[in-house]
């Protein structure tokens, strides 16, 4: 049986290298992708609305009288 120990060691070392490289890249990427708080709200609004005052309610009435002519003496 052929001795493959050299190949096994080579594969293990390659895995180690790959893992190390990814670990390194991930470490630095995490600094760039640090969680960011919500954006501050820097604008607002002040406002109001003017309405016409209610008009007074007006109802019409009538007051009157009539003077009747006096009866003539017969």
């Amino acid at each position, binding site marked *: 049986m052929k001795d493959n120990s050299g190949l096994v060691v080579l594969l293990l070392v390659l895995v180690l290298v790959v893992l190390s*490289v990814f670990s390194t890249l991930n*470490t*630095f990427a995490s600094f760039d992708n640090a969680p960011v708080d919500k954006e501050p709200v820097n*604008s*607002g*609004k002040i*406002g*109001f609305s003017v309405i016409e005052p209610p008009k007074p309610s007006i109802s019409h009435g009538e007051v009157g009288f009539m003077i009747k002519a006096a009866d003539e003496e017969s």
Partner: protein
Amino acid sequence: MEVSNRIIAVLLVLAIAVSAGNFFGATGPLGEAISGMSVTAGKTNVSVTSQASITFVTGWNQTWFGQGTTNAGSSLVIATNQANSNSFYNGSYCNNSAFFGTGTHVLPMCIQNDGNDETTCVKIQASASPTGWITCSGTCAQTPEARIKAYENSTAGLSCTSGLRSTWGQLNGTQRWLCEAINTTRVIGVDVELTLPQNTNSGSELSTTITISGTSDC
């Protein structure tokens, strides 16, 4: 496949170098802290950049006085720190800490330091001067005015450690400071006062946009 010991050695050195670079690059040199012995203290070097940032407390950036009528023959003053007449909403304090009168209330503005600078300067300005947004039917019978002042909103010590604008100042298109140094996470309230001429335009909403900014110094 024949792999020479030289190749394996080179690859191992490479792996060790990458791993070492990763370790020291992330945490900085630890020197003699690396040993088989347990250690009770370590050191991490952290550099924090000062960042001045402020924000309106969520929901406390809309000062809406509601609908009301003007006075006949004189101007009308409405404000967030008083009970208002003519059907305009009564005033209240920042974060509902107190109210004036009953019914629906107009909210003042609440500004918080959400950065990490303990001496952030808070400034405010409107998108227009009072005459630009409190408009009248014809020439205004009285001069429209918009004023602001700031107040402390914390019972746990000062929020604004210096330069609190506690007296009324004009609110217009010019940037004006409210607090020269607000502590982190703390909140200050901003009162608004408006003077409405007797012939202020009716039937539509009159409003102006407010912008605040935080800087490391005033």
